[in-house]
Structures are given as C-alpha cells and as structure tokens.
C-alpha cells in the first residue's frame, strides 16, 4: 500500500482505528469483539464507510488523550501506529497464535531479522511488545511513540459494535465456511398417534422397539424429521436456516393433513454444522502445544484436533489436510466468527510461517 492510500485511509478512519490499537496495547488478550467486528475490507474506501455505517462513530469516543499535534499530522504519523501492520518496514514481531481468540496461552513470539513482505490475508494479533517496538522505530514515529506512551494510561474503551459482514465473505481469509447441516426443533402443540401416522404417511417409518418416534423424510428440501408422540419434532439435514424452516413447516403440514390439529410453534435452530478448507497442511502437534487449554489432539483416538473455542462457543475439528469442521453454533454469524478467529492461528502453523507478515491490515486481533 502506498503512502497516499494510507493517508486517505487514515484520515477517514483514524479515530476508530486508534481505539483498536489502544485496546491492543492495554489488553494483551484483546477483547474478542475486536476481532468479531472485523471482517472489514482491506480497501480503505470500503472500510471507512462501513465503520461509519455501523454507527461506531467518533462521537462516543473520548479523544482528549490524543496529543494536540496529531490533529495536524494525521497521515503518516498516525498511520504508523494506527496501522502498525501497514507499513512495509514494520517487523513482523507479531504473535500469530491469536491471543484474542484463544483467550490465553503463552505463544512464542518469532522474530525475523529482515523486513518481510506483507501479507494481504492475515488477521494477526499484535501484542504489546510488537506495538512498543514498532513504535520505537525511528521511521516517522515520534508522534506514534508519543501516542503510545500517552495512550497507556487511557483506560476507558468504547466497546466496538460488532460489524456483521454484509456478505459472509471476509477479507481476512477469503474462505467462507459452507453450512452442511442444520438441526432445529418445533413444537406441534398436540399429542400425536404415531401408529396412525406410520400407517397413513408414505414417507414415514416407525419401529417402537428401536426408537420411540416416527422418522419422516421429504424430498424438497431433502431433510429428515423425528416426530414424537408428545407433538415435538426434530428436523435435520437442511443446508440453511430458511431451508430448515421450510422443511419443518412441510412436516407440520403433513401432520395437519393427516388430521391432527398441529400448529407451528417455537421453531428454534439448535445446532449448525459447517465445513471449509484452508488449503494448506496444518501441524496439529504444534497447535496442541501452544493452545493446550483449548485443544485436544489424540491421534490414537481421532485423527483430527478438537479445538473448543471459548468465544464464540464453537467446537472446531481441525485436520492435517487443512479441512476444518465447525459445529455447535446457533447462528451463522458464530460460525463465521469462529472461523475468522481460527484462521490466523492456523496460518501460524502453516509450517513455514511462524509469524505473519502483514500488508495493509488494520483490524486485528
């Protein structure tokens, strides 16, 4: 990214970005909401209007701490702190295994002596040392250094409103997890005669000795439902929330047509499963060492690593091939958030990169 682009970028969004940076400085384990708010585009033009649009305006922020000269020196000076990651000369002294997402664990900081190229798709966490040392560099950083020192006593942070992405495509990874299965429940509100249903419906099977529910299937959307005599129903197999709702309605309609006074009450999505592929192999042994509190890797029992993310509460199955399965979500946004959290961690375990060079990234984690 060239200097002028940086300036343009930072003139518009500098106020918001300073908060990002400061949060990083003050809390090593930056609040995960910072990350979740992220999936902003890299292009400055996109980011600026977005940050405005979400209403995270500078009005709420107390900027009195900012030194006066910064008002006139928005561009390069600020940019160097605001986007430590932006500048080409910034050393990649960043902790890749993401503290924010993991919420803990001590990760080794890898340093590269030479200035690396910056990566476009890295959502990497900065830690204090990186900020401080970067700030200490003599590249037009005096205001930056002042900012960082002046900012340390600053404690109050306006929490970021998470920006739900307009499209699920996040610039962070460029990979979108695909939903594979949705499990939802519905109450039909009246007791049902399962034997009768099994007799009258073509697509039903009922074996009371094996399981106490009717298993019904429909073709479109291709799903399966378990219908219990209490009138409760579980619908599985849909690939999206809307599909699941439509399928559940169809089942309710079938039960209605069979003569029961079924209604469609309390439709709730209980679980969502998604999968994606990061397209590079992952060192699971390394990942379990650095993220011990969250990961469980027992190759004798299961070939994948089970990563229990705390926020959002999602379980990820990570395989050596780079395929990731995410489950336990009640909402689509949780899946995307979880993947954006894990992606930088995984990239760190892509064997050749123990750090992630950054290129034009503002938000981080």
């Amino acid at each position, binding site marked *: 990214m060239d200097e002028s682009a940086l300036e343009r970028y930072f003139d518009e969004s500098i106020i918001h970005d300073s908060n990002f940076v400061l949060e990083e400085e003050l809390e090593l384990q930056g609040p995960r909401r910072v990350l979740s708010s992220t999936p902003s585009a890299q292009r400055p033009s996109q980011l600026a209007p977005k940050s405005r649009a979400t209403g995270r305006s500078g009005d709420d922020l107390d900027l009195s701490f900012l030194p006066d000269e910064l008002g006139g020196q928005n561009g390069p000076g600020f940019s160097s702190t605001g986007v430590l990651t932006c500048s080409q000369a910034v050393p990649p002294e960043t902790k890749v295994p993401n503290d924010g997402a993991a919420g803990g664990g001590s990760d080794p900081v890898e340093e*590269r002596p*030479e200035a*690396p*190229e*910056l*990566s*476009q*798709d890295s959502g990497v966490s900065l830690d204090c040392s990186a900020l401080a040392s970067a700030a200490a560099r003599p590249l037009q950083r005096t205001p930056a250094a002042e900012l960082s020192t002046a900012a340390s006593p600053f404690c109050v942070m306006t929490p970021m409103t998470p920006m739900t992405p307009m499209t699920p495509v996040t610039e962070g*990874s*460029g990979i979108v997890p*695909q939903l594979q299965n949705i499990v939802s429940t519905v109450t039909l509100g009246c007791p049902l005669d399962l034997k009768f249903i099994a*007799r*009258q*419906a*073509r*697509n039903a099977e009922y074996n009371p000795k094996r399981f106490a529910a009717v298993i019904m299937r*429909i073709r*479109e*959307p*291709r799903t399966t439902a378990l219908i219990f005599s209490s009138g409760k129903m579980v619908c599985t197999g849909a*690939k*999206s*929330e*809307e*599909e*699941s*709702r*439509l399928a559940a*309605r*169809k089942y309710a*309609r*079938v039960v209605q*047509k*069979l003569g029961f006074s079924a209604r469609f009450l309390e439709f709730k999505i209980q679980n969502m499963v998604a999968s994606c*592929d990061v*397209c*590079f*192999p*992952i*060192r*699971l*042994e390394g990942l379990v060492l650095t993220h*011990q509190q969250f990961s*469980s*890797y*027992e*190759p*004798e*029992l*299961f*070939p994948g690593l089970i990563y229990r993310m705390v926020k959002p509460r999602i379980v990820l199955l990570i*395989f*050596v*091939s*780079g395929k990731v399965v995410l489950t336990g979500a009640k909402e689509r946004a949780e899946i995307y958030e979880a993947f954006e959290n894990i992606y930088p961690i995984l990239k760190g375990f*892509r*064997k*050749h*990169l123990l750090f992630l*060079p950054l290129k034009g990234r503002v938000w981080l984690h």
Partner: protein
Amino acid sequence: MSRASMRCPGCGSSNIVDDDLYCQAQLVCADCGSVVSEGSLAEESFNGPDISYSRTTAVTRKPCVNLIQGLERVKEISRILRVRREIEELALTYYKQAYEHETFLHVTLQRKEILGGCCVLASCRQQRWPITVGTISCLLNGDPAAVGEVYQEMIKVLNIQAPTFSVTDVMEAHCQEYKVSPGHVPEELAEDSKGLTKRAIALVELAADSWIVTGRQPLPIMMAAVYLAWQSLKPNAQRLKMSLEKFCKLAKVQKSKTAGTRITEMKGMLYKLGKEIPWYKEVLTPDNVVSLVGDVLQHRFSLLRRALKSHELSLLEKCPAGQVNPSSAETSSSSDVSEDAGQTPVKSSVNAEKEKQGRDGDESLKSPSEESNPQTQELTQNWGKRVLFAPPCVVNAKRKRAERPPLHVTGDEEISDSEIESYIRTPQEARDFAMMQEKLFTSNNESS
C-alpha cells in the same frame, strides 16, 4: 406369693399367684388361669437421655470396597508398567479424587477400572513418562475408544492438563519390544538396539516432516520405521527380502496391518530424497531405496533443498512462468524445508522473496475456493499434488460425492397442497398396507 386382696374377674377366686418365671411378671388366677394383671413392660419409665435410632443402629463407615479395589488395580498397572514412584502416587491421588466425583461414583465397575488406567495415563503424561493410549487399553483389556472417552471426562473433572506425547517420545520404548538384538536372533539378522532406535527415530522425524505422521495412529508408523531401519542398517539380500510379516515374527511383535501402507509412504518419501543423491548412478525406484537410507538420513537437509529445487523446476517446466500458483505451492514446501534445515540464513532470504510471490499465489488460490464449481475443486484438490510433500489424505483425495445445489428459499413460502398430498397414502393404499402388515404379523406368529 399370693395376693390376698385381689379377686379373679373370671371365676372370683382369690387364689392369685405371681407368675414371674418368664420374662413378664403376671398375676394369674390359680383356679381358672386367667391373667389378672400384667407387668408394666410398657409402663416402665426410662429417665435417661433420648437415644436416636440412627445412632444406635449406625454402622461405622468403612471405606468403599470398590475404591480400595480400584486403588489396588491402579497400583498393579503402575507396577506392570514399572513407572516411577511419583507417578504411581500421583495416579492414586487422581483416582481417589475422580472416584468421589459424581461423574464416576455410580458407574459400572468396568468403567471404574478404565478410570484407574486413565489416571495412570494422565500422571505418566504429566511426569513425561512416554506411554500410549494403546498400551493402557491393552492392559485394561478395553476398547481404546472407551478409554479415550473416560480419559477426556476425567481430565475435565479433575481440571488438569496432561500434554500428549509425540511419536518420537514413545519410539524408544517401542523399539525395546523388538527382539532383534544379537542374543535373540542369528548374527546376520541381529541389530544393536541403540543403533536401531537411533535410526528409527531419524526416520520418524523425516516422516513427520513429510506429513506422514500427523493425524495417524503412532503404532504402525513406529513399526514401519523400525522395519526400514533394521533393513537399512545392513541392507544385504537376506534382510531386504524379508517381508514385514516375517520380520514381526522374527522380532516377536504383533504385526499391524496399516504398517504396510506406512512403509510404502515412507519409501515414497525416501525415494523423492534419494533421487537427489548425486553419486548414485543406478536407476532408483521406491523399492531399492532402502539401501540408500543411511545416506539419505545423513544428508537429509541438503537433499531436501535439492529435491525442492528440482520440484520447482519441474513445475515451472510444466506450467510456464506466467502462472503464479505453482510458485506459491513451492514456497510453502520450500519453506517447509527451510524449517527443517534450521532456517539457515541462505534459505530464509530465499524464502523472503518467495513469500511475496507466495502471498499472491495464496490469494489467487483462495478466491477460487469460494466458488463451487468443478474447476475450483480440481484446483483446491491439486494443491496437494503440486507440492513436494503433502499429507497423503490430500494427495489421494477421495472424490467428493455430488453436492446438492443450494436451495434459495425464504422459509416462508407457500407449501403446495399437491406436494403434501404426495406424502400421504390414499385410503386404498392404507388399507392394503394394513392388510399386509396383519398378514406379516400373523405369519410371523405362526412361524415363530
């Protein structure tokens, strides 16, 4: 002793005697035998303190028999494994703690025994004494999956962290099992256990770098490594001809089926490296690579570098320099290697340049992955084929079954009656179905 003043209500005689021969003293009429008055069993007053029922009937609380047995079993397992005393004591502590917890208090005895084994496993892991889950499940005669399940629960209950072992940690103990030292087998087939272990560990490390180890069961890999190490330490015709099965019989270990696949994979990896040996003039195939294993291991870093370079060159020949994708794949593999080589400065500066290309390559690689069309599937699949070393599950990717095209629905659409009708039986059909069920039912009854 008679009571003169009383009269029997039955017969009126005054001949009343005191009958206190038995437990209760009674006044009985001697003539008719009726009881005039009874002793005051119930009227006796007791002026002591109140004694509660539970206290008088309480049994002294003995330690649970199953707990004692379980602790004995834990001791037994520790002694069989010959672990250090601290490990045994730690395991006993864990067992006592976990046993009392509600998750494990009311489970079957079998599960409690498995819990004992898991406690030993956890304490071995914490004290860095390498054993595998397989060993514990063998000792417990249990299913490794069940052991794993109990282990995970126990870890949660006790809130401890027990770091897992890598294959290289367990390797040494595993190598001890192979009875191929000079005392056990004839001279030509014998191998000193230290040398064997060292070479096997080197092979496992090399395999780990080539993605053969991650995610796989450790035992077949260890077996394959020992086999290849044994063969390569003295690659004469006799050893090379000996199959894995015969070797296992010789060494008195049980052969594992997947070890054969691992051997093939390791030979493939050694072949890729062995190709680069400049002084080997004959034709190299994965079969005759075993004789070169010593050289490969000795010069593995430089051979890796060479292999990567020639891989890049071959890729560049296949696709002209315009395409960035191949170079991105190479950077990942070249960087893989640089890590192995301990990040020699030369390599890392080369990497720095390549990373830039790599970044671009990666991006272009990722954006296609968003689309779901066969071309991208091929591309994403092929990343495994394009690098020098990739996990075998990627290289031999299974063909994905045809995915359903996503439905674009809002969830609130109208549901057509005809569609729903299609799921309901016509009355005639329902009658036929009922009849058939009855027939089946009665015929079942008759036959049974």
